[in-house]
């Protein structure tokens, strides 16, 4: 019996010892730490940027930590709220829709970058969304400039060429969809019925948002919003799309060739190109325009930017790194466009060879030149801090609208829900 007890004592002792050894390991000094969320995309571009910077700065080391996007947000939120800066990274990637939420909820936590970085080099809408009280806080990364991605072969069978898809309205799109299905048997669009992203696309294309510049709810009485929601209701009630649910279902519909296309951000390119057997059968057209004064064919969905934390241990080095590579290196943007399909927002980058080239996958269209032209036309809006809440309210009304619900009533409901949650 005593032997047994000795065994137990040894075990407890060993466990305690193991734990204390572990407690002694600490972080490496002098390293720039970055939090982002996609090792194949933003993580890979960050490593490429670091390799370029290290060529001139041999002492520079970087530690790219990737978590899921929602995880980065949660970590950042919890840590900023706790007031403990210990363990925060130097640079963090934040999705554009959420930028204001962080900037306004945690004043002083992010470093203003306007002094160090020439923001006029970037697409204006990207700078605007990360500005607060006249200060800009981000180095813009990728854009979600939108396009109508379509199967050129299906549309050709239905009698539509590239030229027929320029400058169309959403109602014309419905007509095209009907013709495509009649002639080829394929639905025109893959639509995630629970996603309100398309409403955001329509709103921004007309330079409006759920909120006004000073953060007031701008839903009931917003004529552009009503026009957008009405246009989408007509699409939902037409039979031109395949209703899908969730990302896999949504992308599967066009990856398998079942559906002729989708309207979304430029970042979908990687997903589309993952099916090499469809090379040469895809094209990209501008998105349809809503019937509203001042509306454009250019909009944005998603996208993200880099932020430097005010508490960053390697702040000066991090800012210099962002400035030298992310805010000036045109070659770098060519490389990440080719390797990662990352569509940067540095305006000069469009003069580089990768942006100039036409893309064989997209039927030889000069898609990157087109996207850069649309990028420059995207109306700037202030996403405010409650975009997520407003999205949920819109998504809840979409099924009602699809079943023929009254547009004004739906807007009233959305407005009430957003006000109730945010006021």
């Amino acid at each position, binding site marked *: 019996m005593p032997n*047994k007890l000795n065994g137990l004592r040894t075990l407890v002792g060993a466990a305690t010892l193991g734990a204390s050894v572990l407690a002694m390991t600490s972080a490496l000094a002098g390293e720039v*730490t970055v939090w982002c969320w*996609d*090792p194949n995309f933003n993580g890979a571009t960050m490593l490429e940027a670091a390799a370029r910077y290290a060529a001139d700065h041999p002492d520079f080391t970087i*530690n790219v930590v990737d978590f899921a996007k929602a995880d980065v947000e949660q970590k950042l939120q*919890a840590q900023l709220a706790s007031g403990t800066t210990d363990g925060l990274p130097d640079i963090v990637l934040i999705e554009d829709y959420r930028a204001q939420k962080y900037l306004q909820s945690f004043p002083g936590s992010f470093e203003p970058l306007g002094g160090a970085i020439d923001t006029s080099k970037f697409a204006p809408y990207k700078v605007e969304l990360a500005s607060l009280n006249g200060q800009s806080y981000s180095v813009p990364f990728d854009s979600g400039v939108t396009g109508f991605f379509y199967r050129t072969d299906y549309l050709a069978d239905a009698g539509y060429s590239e030229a027929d898809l320029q400058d169309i309205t959403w109602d014309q799109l419905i007509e095209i969809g009907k013709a495509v299905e009649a002639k080829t048997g394929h639905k025109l669009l893959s639509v995630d019925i629970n996603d309100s992203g398309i409403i955001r696309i329509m709103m921004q294309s007309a330079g409006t948002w759920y909120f006004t510049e000073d953060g007031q709810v701008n839903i009931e009485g917003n004529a552009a919003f009503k026009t957008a929601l009405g246009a989408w209701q007509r699409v939902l009630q037409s039979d031109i799309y395949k209703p899908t649910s969730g990302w896999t279902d949504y992308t599967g519909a066009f*990856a398998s060739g079942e559906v002729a296309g989708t309207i979304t951000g430029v970042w979908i390119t990687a*997903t589309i190109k*993952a099916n090499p057997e469809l090379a040469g059968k895809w094209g990209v057209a501008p998105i349809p325009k809503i019937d509203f004064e001042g509306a454009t064919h250019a909009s944005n969905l998603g996208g993200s930017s880099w932020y430097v934390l005010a508490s960053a241990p390697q702040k000066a080095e991090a800012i210099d790194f962002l400035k030298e590579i992310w805010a000036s290196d045109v070659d770098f943007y060519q490389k990440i466009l080719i390797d990662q399909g990352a569509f940067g927002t540095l305006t000069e980058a469009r003069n580089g060879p990768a942006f100039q080239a036409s893309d064989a996958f997209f039927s030889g269209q000069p898609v990157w030149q087109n996207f850069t032209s649309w990028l420059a036309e995207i109306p700037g809006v202030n996403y405010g801090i409650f975009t997520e809440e407003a999205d949920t309210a819109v998504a809840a009304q979409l099924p009602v609208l699809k079943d023929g619900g009254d547009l004004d009533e739906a807007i009233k409901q959305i407005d009430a829900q957003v006000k109730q949650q945010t006021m």
Partner: protein
Amino acid sequence: MKNPLYLLQRALTYLVLIVASLLSVFPFFWLLVGATNTSADIIKGKADIGGALIDNILTFFERVDVPLVFWNSIYIAVTATFLTLLVSSLAGYAFEIFRSQVRERIFGGMLLMLSIPFAALMIPLFTMMGRLGLINNHLAIILPGIASIFIIFYFRQATKAFPRELRDAARIDGLKEWQIFFYIYLPVMRSTYAAATIIVFMLNWNNYLWPLIVLQTNDKKTLTLVVSSLLSGYYPDFGVIMVATIFATLPILIIFFVLQRRFVEGMLGSIK
């Protein structure tokens, strides 16, 4: 003798059971089949065995330092399970055996604390760990769970079935209190410990939110965090995710099957 109505009833019962078991087995089937397919095929809904298994495994090992991550998860789960069972079973035992008015109040208060959601504790806990210098340290995950109210409660309930006569006999034989616990209580309650091990190990193995908040670097991450970060991004590789998920599920299955036998053994022992 054979009543046709009875036969029909049986047939219907089995039909429902077969459908139900197919439904519950399908996700596992899909997981295994998915691991052998490329991401593009999975998205298209391909449901038969493909040839990409080796590629998926290689990509998984290439992208993630699998041995390190696996070790992190095992280290946390095993240490935490051992310490939790030790501390919480001692507490549960003591609350039941050495009763007093004050201890009942304390116990009641502890049970009330069960109703506080973790989200409300997270930020204060983070501040606390920051002050202790334990951010990005596995101890920050292990320590807060050791005195688990649920496991204390569980052991207290189980202790009610522990025969008082055994304690009395042990005392007459001259055993001290801690000896009674380790030599008499612990072996007799094997089945309870086995069940608690499964629960605590699973809780720690699957623990997600708190490790996510408190761990900051790639070399400290657990398997659950890695699976989650694989799923991120605009173009997730579902084949690799399936492989990672299988890796994350295996230890739980092994623990369960190993302890299930112990579980039965313990039951037989207590009947004797």
